C-alpha cells in the first residue's frame, strides 16, 4: 500500500516536473540561425565582427561557435551529427575537401564575379572531384624573414651560405636558414637549390611523373653547401618546430627563417628587425617557391538538415565578395585570396599576399597520400634526418624519399 502511494506520488511529481521542463523546450519553429564553427584564433578575431549579424544572410542570424583550439574543433567535427553539427566551418582548405569526400559538405555554384575575383588555383583547392564546395578566404604561405642585424638579405643562396660561414666562425650564429613549423617551410630551400616536389605540365597542373625531390642539381648543390666534411648537416639549413631553430631565430642565433604571417607578432615582440623576401636561388636567377595553402569556409550537409542551406549559400556569397573578404582580412590580418582588396592591406599582410603569387599550391591529395608508405611531410623529415643528422648521404637519402613520393603521387593524382 505504501509502495503504491509512493509510486503515485512520484508519478504525479515526475509528470509535473517533466511538464515544466517540456515547457522550457522551445517550440519547433523554422530555424533561421546559421551556426559557424571557428577555431580559437579566427573565433576570437571574427566573433566581434560577425556574431549575431543579420545582414550577412538577410533573414538569418549568424552564430559563431569558437573552440578552444583547432584540435578541439576538429575533434567535435569528427563526432558531429545532424543534431550537433555546424552549418558552416572556417578551417584549412583540406577540411573542405575532406568533408566533401565524406559527404559532409554542401556543393555550391559560383557566379561569374566570384570566379573573376578568386584565383582559379584557390578555387580549385576548395573543390573536389570537379565540384565546388568551399570559398577560399585566406592564403597560408611562407616567406623568408631575414634578420637585418646580419646586413642586407643576400641575393643568392651562395651568398647566404658565405654569410652563414662568416658568422658561424665568429660564433654569432648556429643556424643559417630555418625551415619553421616542421617541414612546411622547407620547400623554398629545396626549390632554391634546384629541387622541390613535383614538376608542372604546360597547363599548370602537377606533373607527378616528374619528381624533383632528388634532382641532380639539388643533390649537387646540397652536397656543396649544406653538409660538412663528415657528411652531416653543417647548420646552414635547419628544420624543426618553433621550439628549435625557430627559437634560435628569435634569439638572434639564426640568419633567417622561412615561416608564415602567424609568426609575425612573436618575431616583432622579440625585437628582431627583419625584411621579408623569398629564399634566394642558388644564382639569384628565377625564384624559389613556397607552399601556398588556403583557409576556406564551407557549408555543411547538416545545414540542409537544419533547414538553413540557402542561408548558408547566401553567407558564402558574402564571404566571397570584396566586402566580406575585406572584413575578414581586416579582422584576421591574414593575406586574402580575393584579388580586388589588395590596396586596403597593411605592408606585412601585403608582403605575404605577394609571396603567395609565387607559391606552389599545396595539393593536399598529393601531399597527404601515403600509399608509398609515408606522406610528403613524414618523408621529408625522415630524409632530412637521414641526410643531415645521420649523415647517410644526400643522394642516397633523397633517392629513397623520391621513390616513396613517386608511389604516393601516382596514387594521389587519381583521387583529386
Amino acid at each position, binding site marked *: 500500500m505504501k509502495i503504491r502511494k509512493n509510486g503515485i506520488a512520484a508519478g504525479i*511529481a515526475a509528470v509535473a516536473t517533466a511538464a515544466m521542463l517540456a515547457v522550457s523546450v522551445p517550440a519547433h519553429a523554422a530555424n533561421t540561425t546559421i551556426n559557424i564553427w571557428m577555431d580559437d584564433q579566427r573565433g576570437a578575431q571574427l566573433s566581434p565582427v560577425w556574431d549575431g549579424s543579420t545582414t550577412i544572410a538577410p533573414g538569418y542570424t549568424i552564430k559563431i561557435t569558437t573552440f578552444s583550439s583547432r584540435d578541439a574543433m576538429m575533434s567535435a567535427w569528427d563526432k558531429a551529427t545532424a543534431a550537433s553539427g555546424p552549418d558552416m566551418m572556417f578551417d584549412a582548405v583540406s577540411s573542405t575537401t575532406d568533408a566533401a569526400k565524406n559527404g559532409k559538405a554542401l556543393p555550391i555554384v559560383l557566379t*561569374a564575379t566570384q570566379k573573376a575575383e578568386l584565383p582559379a588555383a584557390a578555387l580549385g583547392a576548395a573543390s573536389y572531384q570537379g565540384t565546388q564546395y568551399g570559398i577560399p578566404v585566406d592564403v597560408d604561405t611562407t616567406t623568408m624573414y631575414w634578420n637585418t642585424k646580419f646586413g642586407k638579405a643576400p641575393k643568392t643562396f651562395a651568398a647566404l651560405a658565405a654569410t652563414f660561414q662568416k658568422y658561424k666562425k665568429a660564433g654569432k650564429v648556429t643556424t643559417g636558414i630555418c625551415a619553421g613549423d616542421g617541414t612546411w617551410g622547407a620547400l623554398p630551400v629545396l626549390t632554391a637549390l634546384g629541387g622541390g616536389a613535383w614538376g608542372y605540365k604546360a597547363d599548370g597542373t602537377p606533373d607527378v611523373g616528374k619528381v624533383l625531390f632528388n634532382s641532380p642539381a639539388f643533390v649537387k648543390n646540397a652536397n656543396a653547401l649544406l653538409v660538412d666534411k663528415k657528411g652531416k648537416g653543417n647548420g646552414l639549413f635547419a628544420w624543426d618546430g618553433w621550439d628549435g631553430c625557430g627559437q634560435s631565430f628569435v634569439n638572434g642565433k639564426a640568419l633567417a627563417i622561412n615561416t608564415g604571417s602567424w609568426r609575425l607578432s612573436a618575431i616583432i615582440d622579440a625585437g628582431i628587425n627583419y625584411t621579408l623576401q623569398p629564399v634566394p636561388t642558388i644564382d639569384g636567377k628565377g625564384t624559389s617557391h613556397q607552399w601556398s595553402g588556403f583557409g576556406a569556409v564551407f557549408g555543411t550537409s547538416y545545414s540542409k538538415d537544419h533547414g538553413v542551406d540557402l542561408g548558408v549559400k547566401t553567407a558564402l556569397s558574402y564571404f566571397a565578395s570584396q566586402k566580406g573578404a575585406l572584413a575578414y582580412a581586416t579582422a584576421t590580418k591574414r593575406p586574402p585570396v580575393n584579388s580586388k582588396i589588395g590596396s586596403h592591406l597593411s605592408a606585412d599582410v601585403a608582403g605575404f599576399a605577394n609571396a603567395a603569387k609565387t607559391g606552389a599550391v599545396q595539393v593536399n591529395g598529393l601531399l597527404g597520400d601515403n600509399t608509398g608508405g609515408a*606522406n610528403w611531410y613524414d618523408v621529408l623529415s625522415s630524409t632530412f634526418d637521414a641526410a643531415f643528422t645521420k649523415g647517410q648521404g644526400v643522394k642516397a637519402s633523397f633517392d629513397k624519399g623520391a621513390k616513396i613520393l613517386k608511389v604516393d603521387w601516382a596514387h594521389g593524382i587519381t583521387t583529386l
Partner: protein
Amino acid sequence: MNLIKPSAISAVLKVMSLALATALLVWMIYTAILASDFIIAGVLLIILIGANWVYFSKKAVASKFLFPGTVLLVIFVIVPIIYTAWMSVYNYKTGNEITKDQAITQLKLVGLVPDAAGTTYDMVLGKAHGQNAVLLTDQATHQAFLGDANKLTPLQPGSYTMDKLQKAIAAPGFTVASATDIAASNTWLSTFTVPVSNVRFVSPQGSDVAALMHEKFKFNAGLTQLQDTASGVVYVDNGNGNFVAKNDATKVLFPGWRQLNPAENYIGLLTNPKLSGPFVGVFIWTISFAFISVLMMWALGLTLAIAMDKKIKFRGFYRAILILPYAMPSFMSILIWAGIFNGDYGALNNLLGLHVQWLNDAWLAKGVILLVNLWLGFPYFYLISTGALQALPTDIEEAAEIDGATGSQIFWRIKLPLIFQILSPLLIGSFAFNFNNFNLIYLLTKGGPTDVLNGQTAGATDILITYAYKTAFGSNQQNLGLACAISVIMFVIVGALSMWSLKRSRVLEEM
C-alpha cells in the same frame, strides 16, 4: 518534539529525487526522439522504467545498490565495446563514413551541376498568381524572367523595374517576399526548381542567386548504378562502399558509405603486408614493453620497500622523496623528460657535452621509454610492496629462522612468493595499464622514430594503442574500421591475459 518522522522525510526526498530523475530522463528521451536518435531514446526509456521499478519495488532491494553502477557499466564499458566490435566489421574510413542512403542523397546533390556556360541569375523571391515564384535576371545578359514551379517566362524590357545594377526588382503581378519570409521558406526553396527544358532547370543557390542546372548523374531504378551523362561512364556499386567505374575500378566516386565487410579489416591485418608487417612488430614491442616495465618497476619498488622497511635515519624523509614522482602529474613529468632527452636542445646532451639523438634512434628511444616509465611507476610499486611487506605475518619468518633458514632463503622462498601472491592482481592490472599506456608513448616519442625511408610505417616505440590511434586519427586518411579491429584484438589479448593470470594466481578462487 518531532513533528515529522525521519521516515517521512526520506520518503519525500526519495520521491522528489526520483521525480526529478524521471523528468530529466523524459526530457532526454524527448530530445533524442527529436534528433532521431531512437536507439538512445530506447536505452533511456529502459533506464527510466528500470529506475522506477527498482526504487519503488520491495522485490528489488538488492538492485537498489547495483542499479546505478550497472547502468554506468553498460553505458561506459559494455556499449563502447560492442560498438567498437560492431564498427570493426565495416569498411569505415575517410570517404566511407556515412550510410548508403546518405551517400546516395549526397551524390544526387553533387550530380546537380551548372550548365557549361555557368549561367547564373540574380534572384528576387516572392509570389505570382498566388504561387511561389522568382524574379530572375541573367547576370551576363541582364535579361529578366519570371519563374515558378511550372515554367520560366522571359519578361519584355520595360515591363519590369530594374535597379541601378540592372537587376529586376519588381514586375507586374509579382509580390516581393521579405527577408524573414525568405528565411522561413528555406525548406521548400531549397528544393524549388524552375523547369527550363526536359533536362535543364533553374535552382536557387542562396536567397538572392540562382543558377541554370542540369542533372549529371542518372541513377537506375534500384539505385545500384548511375551514369555520368556528360562522359557516359557507368558507375556500379563495388560491394565495398563505393560506386566505381564499370570499366575502370580506379575511378571511384566519393562520398562512399560504411559497408559491412566482416573479414576485410581482420584478414587485412594478417595478410596485407602493409598492415601485418607493422602489426606484428608493434604487437611484440607492446608485450615486451608492458612486461619489462612491470618487472622493472616492481623490482625497484620492492627493493626500495625492503630497504625502507628497516629502521634507518631520516626514513620518513626518504619515503616522502620516493613517492614524489607519483605525486606529480605524469603528463608533466613525461614532457619534462622529453625535453631532457631532446637530441638537439636537451639538458642531458648539454650537461654531458654529447650529441646523442636519444629519441631518434629506435633502441635508444625504447630504452628512454622504459626508463621514464620506471621513473613514473616505481613509487606505486614501492607503496604497494611496503604494504605487502607489512602485511606479512611475522611468525612465519620467526619459524623459518628457528628452522635454520638464512635471510636470503627466507626472502626468496617465503617472503617473495607470499608478496607475489598478494600483489598478483595489482601486477596484472599494471600490465594491462601499460599495455595501453598511450600517454607515455605519445607524449614522449609519438611512437617514433619511424624509419620511413626503409619502408617502416609504424614507429619503433609504437604500442598497439598508439598504432590504432594513428591508424584512426593520425592523418587526414582515417581508417576507423581498422582501428576498431586493432582495438578488439587488444581487448581480447588483455582480457585473455588477465583471466589467465588471475586463474593462475588463484585469486579468483580465493575471492
